[in-house]
């Protein structure tokens, strides 16, 4: 498992190449790249996204998501790289990759990690637009996506 939080821009291509260079005997790699959009959720021009993190709880929340993915899916390795601090439109916010013998496990693990990251990762996210700033929370769609992975009707 490789997990990194960074306040510096990074290239998803480099992360994928490095991830793949360490694989041995896998038959599938699935990766996802999340990019800061040019417009806010309400259509205004985005100046930047600001991802505030907690000095300990943020990495703890991401570690838990990765560890659960590792136990739940038949994957051999995974990588998560997540930005914090100010992020400019067009820059990568998150890179997620999973490798497995066969494709389905890697698809599921990447999908699971992203759905959990979108709702459970400890970040406070603010959109700074040309007409003001707004703190954002996960959408109903985000919560619905996470719900599909629920293993218990009590969760």
């Amino acid at each position, binding site marked *: 498992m490789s997990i990194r939080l960074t306040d510096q821009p990074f290239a998803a291509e480099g992360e994928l190449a490095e991830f793949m260079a360490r694989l041995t005997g896998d038959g599938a790699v699935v990766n996802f790249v*999340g990019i800061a959009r040019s417009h806010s959720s309400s259509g205004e021009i985005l100046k930047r996204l600001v991802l*505030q993190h907690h000095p300990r*709880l943020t990495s703890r929340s991401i570690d838990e998501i990765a560890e659960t993915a590792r136990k739940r899916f038949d994957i051999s390795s995974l990588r998560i790289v997540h930005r914090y601090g100010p992020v400019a439109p067009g820059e990568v916010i998150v890179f997620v990759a999973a490798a497995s013998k066969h494709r389905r496990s890697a698809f599921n693990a990447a999908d699971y990690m992203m759905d959990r*990251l979108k709702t459970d990762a400890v970040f*406070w*996210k*603010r959109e700074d637009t040309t007409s003001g700033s707004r703190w954002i*929370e996960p959408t109903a769609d985000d919560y619905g996506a996470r719900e599909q992975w629920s293993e218990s009707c009590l969760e």
Partner: protein
Amino acid sequence: MKILFFGMLRDALGDELEVAPAGDETVAQLRTRLARLYPDVARDLLSPRIRVCVADAIVGEDFRLGGHDHVEFLPPVSGG
């Protein structure tokens, strides 16, 4: 006692505040004290949506803060 803020509370109150410890005050009493000091954000400070965290664990309204020198106010997380 140091109070640390995150998310929209940080915009309103800054990263942290130093307040005098008030004996064995509970979380609920601290919320009320801060809400009086900062009426502009009183609604948020008193909101159950804002959770209070001590030593990296969420604590309830009756939790006594005596002996703790850091308290964190955490708004609902946005996710990544």
